[in-house]
């Protein structure tokens, strides 16, 4: 066997070992982190109704004119559905 290939094989083998170990260690730490996140979110649960009221209102330089409210969209969608079926 070519000696340079032999050397490359050794390097590839090392990469295989180091790489797989690292991937496993990394994702195992991530498992722990997810458990941590879950615990944190259980201990400090979200307020029951976070959306409607907050001290600082939703702010945006870009106005949102033309964006219909979800209720309106729902109503329209229903209306279209009805229209399509009765067509």
């Amino acid at each position: 066997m070519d000696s340079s290939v032999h050397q490359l094989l050794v390097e590839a083998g090392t990469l295989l070992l180091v790489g797989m170990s690292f991937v496993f260690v990394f994702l195992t730490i991530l498992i722990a982190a997810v458990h941590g996140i879950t615990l944190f979110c259980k201990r400090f649960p979200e307020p029951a109704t976070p959306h409607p009221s907050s001290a600082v209102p939703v702010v945006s330089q870009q106005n949102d004119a033309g964006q219909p409210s979800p209720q309106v969209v729902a109503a329209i969608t229903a209306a279209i559905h009805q229209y399509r079926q009765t067509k």
Partner: protein
Amino acid sequence: MDKLTVLWQSTALAHFQGGQLIMMAVGLLLLYLAIVKKFEPLLLLPIGFGAILTNIPLAGFSEAGGILYYIYKVGIDTGVFPLLIFMGVGAMTDFGALIANPKMLLLGAAAQFGIFATLFGAILLNLVPGFEFTLTDASAIAIIGGADGPTAIFLASRLAPELLGAIAVAAYSYMALVPIIQPPIMKALTNEDERKIEMAQLRVVSRREKIIFPLAVLLLTILFLPAATPLVGMFCLGNLMKECGVVDRLSHTAQNELINIVTIFLGLAVGSKLSADQFLSVKTLGILALGAVAFSIGTAAGVIMAKIMSRFSQQPINPLVGAAGVSAVPMAARVVNKVGLEANPHNFLLMHAMGPNVAGVLGSAVAAGILLALVG
């Protein structure tokens, strides 16, 4: 084992510097403000994320070849991104309320006092040890008082790129804080009776007036202040596309896909300027302090101007609407409406405040042009 050493050397753990950790915390703080406090999330979320990315050791996001480097070079160094944002904002802006009551332009002018007074303040800060603001730096900082993100980023990229990160963060943060900063000033400068004043309903503005308006603004800017034409020109292009009614597909794209794409990139590029060596300086504290001063002075100047106009006007003018002259569209107008409703539950000032609000956008673009012409 050799590979393990290389791998250890290629973790960040071996290379973190204190400043980078602090800047990542700043990035996380911006994400917190954006997501939880809903401070201008469209900009502060990508800015915060960009701040984290740019401070990762070894990753080289903002070095030649890194993605943030390319985005900054292509979009901010050239000035193209803030101008495209401004085109999109123009395509979202309705000047109807201003055309119906053009006197409101004076409120948009008065509120620019926040910019020029801050210029003074920035220079005075040089008396404090540790500050060394040139007139150019001071101009870039003062524009925070314009309460207009793209204008601030554009001017800072021309005059003081190394302060861009702090200036953009200050501008967007204070724009988000308008509901907290403005009401006390508005209430201190007005009495209950003034706040109760109801204003006459605005007339309907014809489509043709709305089409000619941006062209007239552009024409005046060309004649008197060419240095402001990049900002004002792109803004008027957007507004003309919106109002003319014959290029709706272009107007829609400018207001949506194009501005969204550019916003993501602009935010990341601004974030890339939040590096430890540029941001962790006493200058940043100065910029943050001056920004708050600028907003406050601008608000006060607007309200005082409105009080003066109220005295000379036949039609009633509620002095609260002056506060909307700082721009921060549409938040400042909403704040005016809210404070007005507190004094008089039948007093809907929103439309009346939209006039000075959009006038403020023009006013700060003009102010930016003056600073570019005289200082740049």
